[in-house]
Each structure stands twice: as C-alpha cells, then as structure tokens.
C-alpha cells in the first residue's frame, strides 16, 4: 500500500513531463548525405527554428506545472491536450523542416528522425497514460486525448506531409512490399489467435471441469511459454521439413520447414497459455452456489453452461484472448526471420543492411498495430462484461 501512495497518477505525469524536458538536449533531426551514411545531428532549435522550439519547451513546462498541481479533471484534460499538441508540432515541423533540408542537399540526401523525437514520443505516451487513468470516468475526453494526436500524425502521413523523412522515403520505395508484409502479419497473428482460441477454450474448459486433466494441460502450456520464440521456430523447422519431404502433397499447401507453417504453429502454441489459463480461472472462480442454485432449480448442464458459466466467465476469457493477441503481434515480428514474412521482414532487412530507417519502418507499424489491437480487445472485454458485475478497466 505504501508504494500505491508514492506512485500516484500525478507522479507518472510528472515523470512524463520530465522525460519531455529531457528530449531537449538530444538531436532531433539527422541530415545524412546518403542512405547509409552517419550524418550530422541537429538540435531542436537548429532543426525547427527558435519559435517552434520555444513553443515546445513552454508546453512541456506547462505539463510539468499541471502535473505538480493537485489532480483535477480539467488539469488532466489540459495536460492531455498539451501533450497531443507537442506531438503534432513535433511531426508537422519534422515534415516541414525535412522538406527544407532535403531541398538543400543532393538527391540521395536523407533526413531522419533522431533521439529527440523518440524521447518526445515516449514522454507523450507516459503523459497520456497518466491523463487517461485520471479520466477513466469521462469516456469522451479520454478517447479524445488518446487518439487525436495519433490521428493527426497519421493524417499528416497520408497526405504526404512527412514525405521527406527517410523512413517515409524507404516506404515509398517499397509500398507494395509493405502492403504485402502487413497483410501477412495480420494473417499470421490473427490466424494464430483465432486458432489458439478455438483450441485453447475447450482445453481450458476441460482443465476446469476435470481435476486430472488440469495438471498435464498446464504443464504443457507453461513449458511452451518458456521456450524463446526464435528457438521454437527453429525447433519446428526440422520436423516440418521431414513431413513435407515425406508427404509432397503438403508442399502444395505451402507447408514447408520454413515459412508460414512453423511460424503459425509456434504462434498458436504461444497463444495457448493465456487463453487456457484465463478460461480455467474464469470457470473456477465462479461462485459454486450460483451453479448449485442453477442446477437445483432445474437447469440442465448445457443450460447452466450457456446461461450462467458463459456470461460470467466471458470477460476473463476475452481478457486472455486480448493478452494472446497483443503477444502475437509482437512475436510475429520474429517470424520474418524464418521466412514467414510480416512486418518483421523490414526489421531484419534493416539490421542486415545497417539501415535504421528500414528497422523503424518495420517496428513502428508493429507497435501501432499492437496498440490498436489492445484498444479494440479492451472494448470487446468491456462490452462482454454483464452489468451487475464489478467493472475493472
């Protein structure tokens, strides 16, 4: 409880503001003569000009001041808006100044985002997290401050405002490939979570009903979770290769030692533990009196399941699916290494070519995808929670 008193929403907000101020000494834009060159780092005031720099500094100071003051609905909204404005300014002027700087250099010159921008993004995230928490009663404002900044940046991106940034340049050169890998990524993580749910929920139900089944099921799920993802992908290569040699028909379906097959299987295995465990707990934590009353009043076992167990366990089960989904988005990045494709492909390409912009091209969409999936699943969990049960988030 002591820790609770120390770490309040305010202290998180203060931390965020502080991190924001820490972004100032770093370089914000890097001007490179070519894709792979080292480049010179430009400070905030050199990159954006003094007026914008001043605006950003003032906004961070405002955030710091508001965070130190007593927590209050309007202060949280103000902090949230200020943070969003910083984010939007950062990106608008990154785009504009990148245009300016790119015009001065050669055709191969690149302008990329530097540490200052990343620290800013981190600071904005922390600050918005704190603001969101204290606005949990006010859904409208909570959603506004959560998404407006991101929405503005995405709009900017789509309208070409950021085209001079090296990341976007990399993208423009590989648009169709990007779309391909994005689709593969979604299919991989989506498919594995759906399959994991279809397999995991029955396993969870079995474990909850049957004491003897409980041990082996959890033994398996726990062990697989501890295997590092890359190792599991690698372990699956050999058996799947052997299988596809033994049954050439499988190769027609695209099941080979490398590629999507081992990735999908491994991802399904990883989705199992959160889903099985949450299904198990969801059913076991039900008040036995409720089930007894249901049976005693004349519900058949299937009716008890449909009318009582499902609605009461659903929120927890869906939380498990949420955990598995967000986990899968991240793990799918590794799948690229064994030829399965996905956004991770860009990350590994970038690593191989020592081109940081490619890495970013892969990493940022993965992060955004994870955030979106998380938000969507949270909404689904909230919708599935029946009124009359205590609500969590």
């Amino acid at each position: 409880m002591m820790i609770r008193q120390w770490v309040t929403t305010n202290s998180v907000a203060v931390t965020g503001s502080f991190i924001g101020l820490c972004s100032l000494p770093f370089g914000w834009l890097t001007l490179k003569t070519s894709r792979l060159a080292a480049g010179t780092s430009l400070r905030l005031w050199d990159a954006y000009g003094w007026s914008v720099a001043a605006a950003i500094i003032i906004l961070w100071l405002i955030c710091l001041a508001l965070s130190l003051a007593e927590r209050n609905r309007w202060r949280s909204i103000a902090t949230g808006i200020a943070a969003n404005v910083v984010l939007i300014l950062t990106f608008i002027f990154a785009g504009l100044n990148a245009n300016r700087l790119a015009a001065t250099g050669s055709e191969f010159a690149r302008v990329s985002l530097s540490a200052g921008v990343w620290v800013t993004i981190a600071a904005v995230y922390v600050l918005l997290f704190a603001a969101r928490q204290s606005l949990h009663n006010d859904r409208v404002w909570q959603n506004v401050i959560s998404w407006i900044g991101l929405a503005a940046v995405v709009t900017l991106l789509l309208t070409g405002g950021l085209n001079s940034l090296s990341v976007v340049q990399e993208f423009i050169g590989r648009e169709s490939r990007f779309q391909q890998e994005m689709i593969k990524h979604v299919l991989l993580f989506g498919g594995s979570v759906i399959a994991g749910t279809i397999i995991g929920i029955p396993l969870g139900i079995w474990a909850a009903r049957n004491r003897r089944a409980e041990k082996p099921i959890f033994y398996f799920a726990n062990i697989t979770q501890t295997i590092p993802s890359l190792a599991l992908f690698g372990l699956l290569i050999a058996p799947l290769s052997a299988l596809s040699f033994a049954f050439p028909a499988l190769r027609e379906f695209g099941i080979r030692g490398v590629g999507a097959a081992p990735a999908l299987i491994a991802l399904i295995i990883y989705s199992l533990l959160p889903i099985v465990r949450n299904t198990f707990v969801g059913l076991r934590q039900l008040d036995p009196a409720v089930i007894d009353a249901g049976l005693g009043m004349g519900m058949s076992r299937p009716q008890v399941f449909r009318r009582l167990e499902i609605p009461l366990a659903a929120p927890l089960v869906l939380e498990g699916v949420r955990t598995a989904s967000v986990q899968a988005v991240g793990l799918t990045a590794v799948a690229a290494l064994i030829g399965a494709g996905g956004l991770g492909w860009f990350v590994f390409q970038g690593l191989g070519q020592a081109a940081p912009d490619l890495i970013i091209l892969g990493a940022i969409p993965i992060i955004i995808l994870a955030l979106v999936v998380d938000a969507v699943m949270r909404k689904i969990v909230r919708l599935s929670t029946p009124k009359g049960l205590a609500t969590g988030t």
Partner: protein
Amino acid sequence: MIKLEQVTKKYGETAAVNGFSLEVNEGEVCVLIGPSGCGKTTTLRMINRLIEPTSGRILVNGRDTGQAKPEQLRRSIGYAIQSVGLFPHLTVAANIATVPELLHWDKSRIARRVEELLTLVGLPPAEYAAKYPNQLSGGEAQRIGVARALAADPPILLMDEPFGAVDPLTRERLQTQFAAIQQELKKTVILVTHDLDEAIRLADRIAIMAAGKLVQYDTPETILSRPANKFVHDFVGTDRALKRLSRINVERFIRPAASVALSASAREAKTAIGGKRSAWVVDEGGQLLGWIDKASLSEATSVRQAVVALDTKDIALMRCATLREALSRMLGQGLKSIPVVDENSRLIGEVTLGDVEAATAEAEE
C-alpha cells in the same frame, strides 16, 4: 406427499445417510435438524436428486423421483440455499423469473408473477425489480432467494439453512415473514437447519437426525416434552420448558385487567383497583400509558400524580406474542403481570406469571 423409504447414501464405505425413512404430509413444514455431519443436507439434496441415493426410494405424490428426468423434477420443486446463489449478471426480476422461463411461461405472466412475489416477500417491485444482486443487503438477497424458489408456484419447497447467513435480528424478521407466507401458501416444506429455536418456531414436525439416521420425528411440543432418548434430551437442551413456551400463544391466556383513566381521581382509582395491588392507567381512547400502585394512592389526590409511566413498546405484548416473550418481559421488568395491547396500543387485558406456570404444567402432561 413426500415419502422417503429406507434411503441410503454411501460414500465409499461410510454411510452419510443410513436407512432413512420419513413421510411429510401436504402443507406441512418438516424441519431436518441434527449435529454437523448428521446427513440432513445430504438427505435434502437427495429429494431433488442433486445427490443420487445409493439405495432406497423417494416418492413425491406417489411417483418415484428416480424415474423422472432430474431437470423436470427440479422445476417442480422450489430450492433455496444458505448462500442464496443469486445470478450476479441478472437483475432481481430475471433471477426470480428463472424457473418460469425454463417452463416457457409467456412474458406477461412472468412479469405479473415477479411483481406478486416481490410484494409477498416485502420488497416493493418498482424499486427492486431492476436491481442487481450486488446492490442488495444480506436480508434482501435471502428474501429474493425465497421468492425465486416460489416463482413457479411449486407444491414443494426445499430449503437449506435459508436464513443462516444473516444477523440474528434480520433472521428473526425473515422467520416471521416466512411463517406468515407459509400460513398463506401452505406449501409442503422441508427445511434444514442447525438452529433449534428456528426449528421450534417454524416446524409442524421436527426430524432429529444423528449419524445418518432418524432419531425422532414428532411435533416440537412432543420432542420437547417427551424426548425419545438421551441424545434428543441432550440435543434439545435443559431449557426445554422455556422452549416449549415459545410455541404457546398468549391469546389463550389473556384475562381482563383492572384499568383506570388518567383523568380519574384517587377515589375512583381505589375503587377500580379493588383488592389487587395495582392497575393499568389508560388515556381517553383506551391506550396504555402506565400503571399505578395502590400504596402510592394513599398520598395522592389524583391518578395523574401517582402514575408510573411505561414504555409501551418495551413492556406490553401484542396478541400474537408467545408465552416465552411474556415470561421474558416479566423477568426483565420485575412484574408479575404483563399488559396485552392491540395494534393501536389499546389495552386488551393482561397475562400473569401464574398463567405461565399453569401453561408449563399443562404442557408437561
């Protein structure tokens, strides 16, 4: 109406219920009571087949319960348990409507029934129908549990410590309410409890169990006055006489009481008291105010001067009170007689210690 024939339930080698036979008539309240582990809850749960007997038969209205489908059987038997088990994700109305919905009643009939039952258990429908279980107090939840058990108007009601999980004051109120409901509905009830006072209060007949067997099955009066063996004797406790008094109503024993108006003079009061030592003092409308002592009248000139005021609520009894309450107040207040009043606090008569003694002697026979 309900007949258990040599019912046995074995878990491995141990018999939780051993050759238990019982017959409960229609409209009777039969209370199963006994020490922990005596098999009373197991017996109850065998009636609606939540537990299947190892051997023996249970007949409801002459039909063997073992033949019917368990779900069908249970829908015709009301079931209320100690922890209530209200469905937390459904409103109170939806909870009560459970069995009618399983029986495919139409919506308007269900709605009417829900309203009827909420009124019956003393919870205004307008306020409670849309509430969720987590908004209810313990007493309210237990009442809704009983309403839910009665929803489809089953002829039989099984109750497992239905009033156990609340404080003693609420429990007493719930018991009184249940007794009133039972008067009206006349269901065949089998109730399990470990509280002997509850059993004595509510039962038409009590079945005392020990180690899975039936020890004595009689009316409360008989069990109290003629315990079958040492076990029952000890189980019932040494204050049998007192317990018996809680079964006797004061109505039978009310005798006319000397009373005098507040506005009366000392001389009128002396006449009213006559040979007794005191009289009750009432106002114009006959409402009880206090009492007056013969001795204090010798100094006073009017009743008003010498009257000793009473807190009517603490001292006076209502018609429906038991002799046990009468004795309790006599001892508490140091009086040899207690006034009996009606709903408007008007004096009806009094009950004396002598009456209590006479009633005890009568019960001994």
